[in-house]
């Protein structure tokens, strides 16, 4: 076909040349002897043949050009399809408005073409129009310089995507820069793989031991360097070993019990303390879902030998200090008490005053000592803290009976409001009594002479609220953050200082928190303060049991 068309073009071209040559002869362009008629005839014939041939030739070339154009168009389209299939494409005006996006674009970013056409592309950047990368792209777009690099973008639903991006200027037939085409490739997967690799390295080098194993047989599929080091199992020696083999002193039954709460989804994470030779170990196990939906267990084992030793040393020290301080205090207080009693003879005037001062201060010293020890024990979770089902009504009544003497000393009366009979919680009566005593003695200390302190209960849905309300000077709002701090003796709103160790409310807070409860207060300067203790209700009323207990 091509051969044939070349031939015909050549023949026609020759014809045209011939015709034109004849015409030129006739017009005397080329000097030849001739008469006017003959030359006129030659000229006409030559012109006709020549121009006819040129006409045909031009047609022929037109067709060929079109075919070539079609060919190029096809190839161009082919390339364009390939680009469209592979990359994320958008074409924008030099000034930024999007005029075309391909399917990959709408699929990746989650916007429909209608949503984006005519807009600037800022919405796919982390910080929209303010995003420095977007601004850089815009200035390159205007300048027609193009841009290449990696971009962290976001989809319509906010997910991060990483793309490799190339923007190129497009020029129109006049050579004017009118548009930009931007091609992007989604490299999120490889970025993620890099991140995964990074995490694996971190996991591998972690000081804690990490074991990953299946949920059915507990066969280990991964252990990090620390885990391999302690067990002495090299990578190759891992095959088929179970997690409970990794801790020599643990009974498989104990381990099964440890992870049982994970199987029914009751707890997201479980902890176990055990020993391995001379080491104290803490095992924390979590159930995770691997990509692909397969459930796995991850156990992180931490060597807590040192921490345990430090804790024990601290408790031993507290115990020693307690003993060392209490022994001399026993003698001092005992001696003073006997002197005061007059059993060993009587003193006159001022002597009684100084004995009184010494006795009062030894009492104060003992209170501080007891408070420090209590707080320390509560915080170290060493305090006896058995909780049982109990009702709050009788507790409030006995708190009032116990503290009425102290109230009288300050000229204050305690009154019980609405003693709800059925307020049942899981609590430690002794510790809650400590909370009430602290709150009530504070209330008494801060109430005016002949004042009244109201103690009561409120039903607050999920919790029972104990309140202790005084009519004292109130607590300034600015003091709120420090009220429950240790040794937080705030300046009372009336400026009159009260005695105390500054530990009472810190102890209350610790005790209430051990009950999964909350302590707070509301106060109005000049009108008084109400402390509130919220304690979670116990499930199910045990009315008969309560009545039996009260009866006995």
């Amino acid at each position: 076909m091509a051969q044939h068309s070349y031939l015909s073009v050549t023949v026609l071209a020759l014809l045209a040349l011939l015709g034109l040559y004849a015409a030129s002869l006739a017009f005397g362009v080329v000097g030849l002897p001739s008469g006017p008629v003959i030359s006129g005839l030659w000229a006409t014939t030559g012109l006709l043949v020549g121009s006819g041939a040129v006409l045909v030739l031009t047609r022929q070339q037109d067709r060929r050009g079109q075919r070539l154009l079609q060919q190029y168009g096809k190839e161009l389209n082919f390339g364009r399809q390939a680009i469209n299939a592979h990359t994320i494409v958008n074409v924008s005006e030099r000034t930024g408005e999007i005029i075309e996006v391909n399917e990959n674009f709408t699929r990746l970013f989650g916007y429909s073409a209608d949503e984006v056409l005519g807009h600037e592309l800022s919405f796919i950047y982390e910080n929209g129009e303010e995003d420095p990368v977007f601004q850089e792209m815009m200035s390159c777009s205007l300048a027609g310089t193009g841009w290449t690099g990696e971009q962290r973008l976001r989809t319509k639903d906010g997910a991060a995507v990483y793309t490799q991006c190339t923007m190129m200027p497009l020029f129109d037939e006049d050579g004017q820069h009118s548009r930009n085409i931007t091609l992007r490739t989604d490299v999120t997967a490889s970025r993620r793989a890099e991140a995964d690799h990074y995490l694996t390295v971190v996991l591998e080098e972690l000081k804690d031991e990490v074991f990953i194993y299946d949920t059915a047989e507990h066969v280990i599929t991964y252990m990090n360097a620390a885990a391999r080091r302690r067990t002495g199992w090299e990578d190759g020696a891992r095959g088929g070993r179970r997690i409970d083999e990794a801790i020599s002193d643990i009974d498989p039954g104990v381990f099964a019990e440890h992870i049982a709460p994970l199987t029914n989804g009751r707890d997201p994470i479980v902890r176990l303390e055990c020993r391995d030779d001379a080491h104290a170990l803490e095992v924390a196990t979590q159930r995770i879902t691997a990509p692909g939906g397969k459930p796995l267990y991850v156990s992180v084992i931490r060597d807590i030998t040192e921490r345990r030793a430090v804790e024990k040393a601290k408790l031993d020290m507290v115990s020693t200090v307690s003993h060392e301080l209490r022994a001399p205090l026993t003698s001092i207080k005992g001696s003073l008490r006997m002197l005061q009693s007059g059993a060993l003879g009587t003193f006159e005037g001022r002597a009684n005053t100084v004995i009184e001062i010494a006795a009062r201060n030894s009492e104060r010293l003992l209170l501080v000592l007891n408070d420090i020890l209590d707080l320390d024990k509560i915080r170290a979770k060493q305090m006896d803290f058995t909780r049982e089902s109990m009702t709050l009504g009788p507790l409030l009544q006995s708190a009032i009976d116990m503290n009425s003497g102290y109230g009288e000393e300050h000229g204050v009366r305690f009154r019980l409001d609405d003693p709800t009979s059925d307020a049942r919680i899981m609590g430690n009566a002794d510790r809650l009594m400590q909370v009430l005593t602290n709150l009530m003695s504070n209330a008494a200390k801060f109430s005016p002479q002949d004042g009244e302190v109201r103690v009561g209960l409120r039903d607050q849905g999920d919790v029972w609220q104990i309140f202790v309300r005084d009519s004292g000077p109130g607590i300034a709002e600015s003091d709120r953050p420090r009220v429950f701090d240790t040794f937080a003796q705030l300046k009372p709103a009336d400026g009159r200082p009260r005695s105390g160790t500054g530990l009472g409310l810190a102890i209350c807070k610790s005790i209430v928190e051990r009950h999964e409860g909350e302590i707070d207060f509301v106060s109005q300067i000049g009108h008084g303060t109400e402390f509130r203790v919220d304690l979670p209700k116990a499930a199910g009323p045990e009315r008969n049991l309560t009545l039996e207990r009260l009866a006995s």
Partner: protein
Amino acid sequence: MTLRSILHVEDDADIRAIVQLSLETLGGYQLSQYASGPEALEAAPSETPDLILLDVMMPGMSGEDVWKSFTEMPHLRDVPTIFMTAKAEGVYSADLIRRGACAVITKPFDPMSLPDEIRSHWDKCASEHSA
């Protein structure tokens, strides 16, 4: 039966003096005091107290050790034993009582009320023993 004689073991001399003033002078009891476990054990064969009062924390031989040795002596085995401790933990006291101690008194104690306190504990424990 009435409470007359008390055997007291306490390493702190000042506390021994306070207890002596309290129980002898105020309470009117007959008191034998020892500064350590070994000292008390040496004298034990000739002692026939109605009540034993032991400090818990003592260097060398603890109050519990002394108690254990006394229970191996037939004439002291059933004598009500009261402990004095600066350890305030309820758990510890409860454990001693579960194991057969008559009572646990927390230091610092009030010397004015100590005689009465000891008497009431003894009344309870002695009647349990005879019953």
